[in-house]
C-alpha cells in the first residue's frame, strides 16, 4: 500500500473523532448527563436540557452528517483517492 493511503486513513479517523465528540456532547452530555443543570436556562418556553433531548440534538446530528460528507470529499481529493 502506498504511503498516501495511511495519511488518508489518519485524516479520516481525525475527522471522525472530532465529529463523534460533538455527537456525544450534544446528546449524551447536554441531553442526558447535564440536562438537569441546563434546565435552569430557558430557550423560549423550553427548559434547555429538555430542548437538547427532544429537539436540539436532532438538528445538530443533521449538520454533523453534511459537514462530514463535505469534509470527507475534501480529504478524498487531498489524497487523490476520490471517485472519478
Amino acid at each position, binding site marked *: 500500500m502506498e504511503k498516501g493511503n495511511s495519511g488518508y486513513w489518519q485524516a479520516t479517523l481525525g475527522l471522525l473523532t472530532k465529529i463523534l465528540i460533538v455527537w456525544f456532547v450534544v446528546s449524551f452530555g447536554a441531553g442526558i448527563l447535564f440536562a438537569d443543570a441546563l434546565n435552569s436556562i430557558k430557550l423560549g418556553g423550553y427548559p434547555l436540557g429538555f430542548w437538547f433531548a427532544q429537539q436540539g440534538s436532532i438538528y445538530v446530528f443533521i449538520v454533523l452528517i453534511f459537514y462530514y460528507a463535505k469534509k*470527507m470529499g475534501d480529504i478524498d481529493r487531498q489524497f487523490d483517492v476520490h471517485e472519478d
Partner: protein
Amino acid sequence: MDLQTTIYIGVGLSFALYIGIAIWARAGSTSEFYAAGGSVHPVTNGMATAADWMSAASFISMAGLISNMGYGGGLFLMGWTGGYVLLAMLLAPYLRKFGKFTVPQFIGDRFYSKSASMVAVICLLTASITYIIGQMTGVGVAFSRFLGVSSEVGIYVGMGIVFLYAVFGGMKGITYTQVAQYIVLILAYTVPAIFISLQLTGMPLPQLGLGSNMVGTDVSLLSKLDMVVTDLGFGQYTTTTAGSTLNMFVYTLSLMIGTAGLPHVIMRFFTVPTVKDARSSAGWALVFIAILYTTAPAVAAMAKLNLHGTVNTAVVTGGDLYAEESSIKAEDRPDWMKRWEKTGLLKFEDKNGDGRIQYYNDKTKSEEAAAKAEAAGWKGNELTVNADIIVLANPEIALLPNWVIALVAAGGLAAALSTAAGLLMAISSAVSHDLIKNIFVPDISEKNELLAGKIAMAVAIVISGWLGLNPPGFAAGTVALAFGIAASSLFPAIMMGIFSKKMNKEGAIAGMLAGLAVTLFYVFAHKGIFFVKGTEFVDMIGGANSFFGITPEAFGAIGALVNFIVAFLVDKVTKEPPEHIQHMVEAVRIPRGSKAVDGAH
C-alpha cells in the same frame, strides 16, 4: 360524508397509489429486485430510507410513549436519529465501496468464512423478525380502529397487504412506493400537529409551538402541562427520566448503534451510485426523518394536554382540578372516546360511581395529590389510555375535520407497511442469497432464488403476524428490542471489519455469538423465550431489571460491549487474517474504484 366513509376513501386511495407504483416498477432481474440496479438518487434514496425507517413505532407509538414518559421519551428521539451519524461515518460509505448486496455477504467475505456469514444471517433474522412483530402490533392497532374490526382481524388484513406488494414489487418497487409512502405519512403527521399547535399556541410550526406560550396567556405550554400533571400526581413532564440516568444513557446508546446495525437500513446504502452519495444519502434520510422526529415531542405534549383538557374542564379554565364539576360526566364524553372503547385500547370504569370520569395517577408518590384525590372522593383512576392510540386519536381529541383523521389513518398504515416491506426484503435476501445460494445450493437458478426469497417473506409474515397477536409490549418497545439485538450482534462485527485490519474470523464469530446470546438471555428472561408468554424466567436472574436497573430494551449497548470485548480477546489468541483480507480492508477504506453493486460472484 361520515367519518367512516372518509377513512375508507382515504386509505383506499393511498393503497391504490402504492400498488399502482409497485406494478409499474415490477422487478425483472435479481439485481433489480434487491438493489434497484444501483441507480437511485441520494435525495430519493433518503426519502425512501426515511419511509423505510419510520415504522409503526415512530409514527403510531413513539409520540404516545413520549407523552407518557415526558422528558425521558427523548431517548427515542436522540437514539433513533443519532444512529444515522454513526451509520453515515462508520458504515455506509465502506459497505457501499465493498459493493455487495447484503450484510451477511460482507461479513462472510471480510471474515473469509461461511460460518461467519451464517451467524450474521441468524443475527439478522432475529433482529428483523422482532422488528416486524412491532410493526404488526401497530398495523393491528391502526386497522382495528379504522376498519372498525378487532385488532386480531386488523393484523390478518395487514399481513395480506404487506405480502402482496413486498412479494410482487421487489426493492425497486419498494423504493418508489416508499417515496409515495413518505409523502403520505409526513403529511399525515404534520398536518394535524400544525392545526393543534395553532389551536393551543397560535404558532403554526409545532417545533416552535412546543416552546411557546398558551394562546392568550403568558404561561408557556410546557409549564402549564407541568402544573396540570404534577397536580394530578404524575411526574413532572419536562424532567421525568426513563428509569435512572444510567438506564436512559444506555437505552439511547442501544438505539443509536442498533440503528446503524439494522440490516434493512444498511441495505439502503447499497442502492446509491457512489461512495460519495452513500455519505450524503444518510444526511438526506435524517433530514426527512427529522421532520417527523422534531414534530413528535410537540404532538406528545399537546395531545397530553388536550387529553387532560377533554376529561377535566379545569385544565382549560385554570380552576380546581379536583372540584366535582371539573371532571366531565361520563354520558357527555366525546364520540371519539366511545369509538376507541370498541377497540379495547381505551377503557373507562366508573370506580366511585359518581358518573364522572376521573383521570389521575392513583399510585402517586406525591402526598399532596393523594390527599386531594382522597378529599374529592376519588376511588382510583377511571380512564386507561393505551399509549399506541395517542397519535391516531390525536386529531379526534383535538376535534379536527374528518379528512385529517382519514389522512392520519392512511399515514399510520403507510408507516407500518413500508417498514415491514423493507424488513421482509432483508429477510428474503438473507435466506435466498446468503443461506441458499451462497451456502447450500450454489448452482441455484436466478428464478428459483427469487422464488425462495418470496417463500421466505411469506414465512416471515406468518411468524411475525402470529407473534404480533401476542406482542411483548407497545409497538415502540418491541421495536426497541430489535435494535438491542442488532446493536449487540451486527454493528460491532461490521465496524471491526472495517476499522480493524487484524480482526479475524474467530474473533468476529465469537463476538457476534456472545453479544447476541447475552442480549437474548436478558430479553427472554423478561419477555419470554422467543416472546412466547409464560416462559419468562426473570426470577432466575434476580428480578426485573436486575443488571444495574437496566431495562431489557436498553440492554443492547451492554451486549455490544460484550461483543467487542469477546471479539478482541479471541482475536488476540488466534492467528491473524490472511494477507489478501488485510489488503481488501485497505481497499474498502478508500472511495476510488467503487463499482456498481453486482450480484455475480
